[in-house]
């Protein structure tokens, strides 16, 4: 009976060989497919279970991964969540990622190509993979000042460093706490998300760059002014500024806010027209210049551009082939003009930086877990929409707006602030949007800013942009000046 026992042991060997080949097939050959299978929750756990790098503002982590005793190993933690939500976004097991958490995901997760050598080093030293830290260009002081100044108003504040394009502050209101969506309980996250979605004022919307675009109102007169200066106008060039301007090909008549007169003799300099924000003068100027000139200037300032800072920015829009009446309306920032607050901050920054517009960006540096520099952002020029001389002229005109025009409430003692207000009608019975666009100090700007307060204006006059939005801007500018003086 020994022979069959030997054969039986061969059969047993064959059986085990079959098992071994099956195991090899599963664990090596088809492992890739199985690991990519969407039903494989391990992939999710692996991604969400690695140490994710922090998001840093002014050298301090505002978002980091806290080691916790849960299947995910780490809890994404948001210090000052609502303050930075518009920039950091959230990191949710149910709804994925948004904003920086999304755009810089590969770096934060540690899977980016640029981290290859870091990963190799970790492999050699046996350390676990750790994500890189992303340092933002934001300034904590300016961001806090902007959020505090905006308060409960619905709107947004964007502040740029005109010399580099660094985004110093990006605040949207109302906001939310990303921690609500970062919980590890799907049910809790779902409930919180539905609640946020249900709120009418849309706390999840980043009004600064990706909300509805807004009619820029009188702040658009900066573009028309820039186009006029390029066309040969000067600050003291006289414009036709009637009390009422009949619009061509229509029975409509364009007046000024509150029916006020721009001047006694229907003549006004370009600087004065900007200072008191005279609608009839700019509407007439726009028709004289022609839409093509204005459109080109607006595009040089960024209209129509799909920006990625690296958050995706909704392109600001312009009307297509407007007739003369529409051109008149568009020249004062109404009709089909639309802009994001970031776009208007870029207008201010371009003028502030001697006519050179720098591309806005949010990510300053990326460092791996051992603090080695992986990426360092270099300021990039976006365009040169104005000559230095024209930019300086327009700057002086904007200083006039703050010193003795529609934006006196943006004045700061001892500092020359340049600005322009706007009150944009929304076409409905709702109250208009209030704008302030500006920069300071005028001779050596450290901050360019755009403030939008949704439905924050009243219909009683141009002064509303100055009354609602300008004080907010002033607080933010003061914070920037304090920081610059201290740092």
């Amino acid at each position, binding site marked *: *009976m*020994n*022979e*069959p*026992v*030997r054969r*039986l*042991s061969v*059969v*047993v*060997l064959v*059986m*085990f060989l*079959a*098992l*071994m080949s*099956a*195991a*090899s*097939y*599963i*664990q*090596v050959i*088809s*492992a*890739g*497919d*199985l*690991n990519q*299978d969407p*039903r*494989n*929750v*391990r992939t999710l*756990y*692996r991604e969400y279970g690695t140490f994710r790098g922090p998001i840093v503002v002014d050298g301090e982590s505002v978002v980091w991964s806290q080691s916790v*005793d*849960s*299947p995910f190993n780490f809890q994404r933690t948001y210090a000052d969540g609502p303050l930075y939500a518009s920039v950091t976004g959230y990191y949710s097991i149910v709804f994925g990622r948004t904003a920086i958490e999304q755009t810089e995901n590969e770096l934060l997760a540690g899977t980016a190509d640029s981290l290859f050598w870091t990963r190799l080093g970790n492999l050699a030293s046996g350390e676990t993979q750790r994500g890189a830290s992303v340092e933002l260009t934001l300034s904590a002081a300016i961001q806090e000042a902007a959020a505090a100044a905006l308060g409960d108003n619905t709107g947004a504040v964007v502040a740029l460093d005109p010399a580099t394009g660094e985004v110093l502050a990006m605040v949207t209101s109302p906001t939310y706490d990303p921690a609500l969506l970062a919980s590890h309980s799907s049910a809790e996250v779902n409930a919180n998300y539905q609640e946020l979605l249900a709120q009418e004022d849309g706390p999840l919307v980043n009004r600064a760059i990706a909300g509805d675009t807004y009619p820029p109102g009188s702040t658009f007169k900066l573009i028309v002014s820039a186009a006029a200066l390029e066309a040969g106008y000067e600050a003291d060039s006289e414009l036709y500024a009637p009390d009422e301007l009949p619009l061509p090909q229509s029975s409509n008549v364009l007046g000024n806010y509150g029916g006020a007169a721009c001047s006694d003799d229907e003549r006004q300099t370009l600087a004065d027209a900007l200072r008191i924000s005279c609608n009839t003068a700019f509407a007439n100027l726009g028709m004289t210049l022609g839409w093509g000139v204005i459109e080109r200037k607006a595009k040089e300032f960024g209209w129509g551009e799909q920006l990625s800072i690296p958050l995706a920015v909704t392109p600001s829009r312009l009307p297509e082939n407007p007739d003369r009446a529409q051109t008149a309306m568009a020249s004062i920032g109404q009709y089909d003009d639309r802009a994001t607050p970031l776009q208007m901050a870029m207008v201010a920054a371009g003028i502030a930086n001697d006519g050179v517009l720098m591309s806005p960006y949010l990510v300053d540096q990326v460092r791996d877990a051992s603090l080695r520099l992986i990426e360092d952002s270099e300021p990039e020029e976006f365009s040169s929409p104005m000559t230095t001389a024209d930019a300086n002229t327009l700057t002086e005109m904007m200083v006039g707006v703050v010193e003795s025009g529609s934006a006196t409430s943006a004045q700061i003692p001892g500092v020359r602030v340049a600005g322009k207000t706007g009150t944009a009608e929304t076409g409905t019975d709702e109250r208009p949007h209030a704008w302030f666009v500006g920069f300071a100090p005028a001779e050596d700007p450290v901050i360019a800013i755009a403030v939008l307060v949704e439905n924050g204006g009243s219909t009683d006059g141009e002064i509303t942009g100055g009354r609602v939005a300008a004080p907010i801007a002033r607080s933010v500018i003061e914070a920037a000046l304090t920081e610059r003086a201290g740092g």
Partner: protein
Amino acid sequence: MSLVLHFAVRRWASFADPVLLPAVLALNGIGLAMIRRIDFAYADRGRDTSFGEVQIVWSLLGAALAVAVILLLRDYRLLRRFTYTAGVLGLVGLVLPLMPVIGTQINGARIWITVFGRSLQPAEFAKIAFVIFFAGYLVSNRDTLALAGPKVLGMRFPRPRDMGPLALVWVAAMMVQIYERDLGTSLLLFGIFVAMLYVATERLSWVIVGMGMFAAGAVLAGTLFSHVGSRYTAWLHALDPEVYRSGASEQLVRGLFGMASGGLFGTGWGEGRPDLVPYAESDFIVSSLGEELGLTGLMAILTLYVIIVQRAMRTAIGVRHGFGKLLAAGLGFAIALQVFIVVGGVTRVIPLTGLTTPFLAYGGSSMLANWVIVGLLLRISDQARRPEEVRA
């Protein structure tokens, strides 16, 4: 524990195979570590389990039982006297779960009995009883079964009237599959019988007839009974989204995901997520091990089994009595086939069944029964290797 065992074997079975015990202990240890680790994983998810502690108790009991076997059974040949007693015991064990009151159905399979609040799988013990019965029966009747019968295509086929025992076991196996809904046990019993029949008669024809009968029966059962059929579907189309969504292959596929994430070298102890697979501590402990120890670890574990089985086979060759040969070969093959059925089920070589992995998986019955097998093998090998003059 291993030291005590070692000395016990040295003292009372000094010529026993020296490789068997360490290999079994290694497997038992790996299993304990894995189960304890899965306890922690469950605890993380708020599910308090103490599989690890319980398993340690079972392991100790099992080892004690093995020593008891070695101690009490000074000569394995005594077992031959109990051939038919064992046969009856085996049948009773097999049928027990079908009895009212004590029979319990868990997860669709009716293979448990509940005694004193503990569920046991009598089939695990019935397995040993059947091996003893087969060995005793076959050693007495091998000549009839081997020599008589018509010759077809150069092979001598058994006479129909000698087919009785085979048919009986076939019926029993089919009953298990249908009434207890347990393909694994049925395949295990039938496989052991056919293998031992082959060893006893040296006739390949028995194997062919036996496998043909089982295949026919299995296909028939698959078509006639939906619960058997769904097992087959889950096996063949495990990754099919529809089958997966229906839940039929969910456990299997999750096990595959686990093993795949382990890859070549595994995630390392405590680094994987074996708790994502249902029954990670018992039926799917192999996928848990595959995940955390990788293909490398799984290969090592399978190799340990190969060593155990091959030592059993070596014992069978070395032993001088026909009964001992059959017993050792049968017990060794029982372990091999059981591993094949479980691991094959998890790795999609064969349809998934509910057997436990010997020595590794959580489960008292299996642990005790397999340690008894080890005790028997140690006793047989001791007698096989003992020098002639001492044995006299």
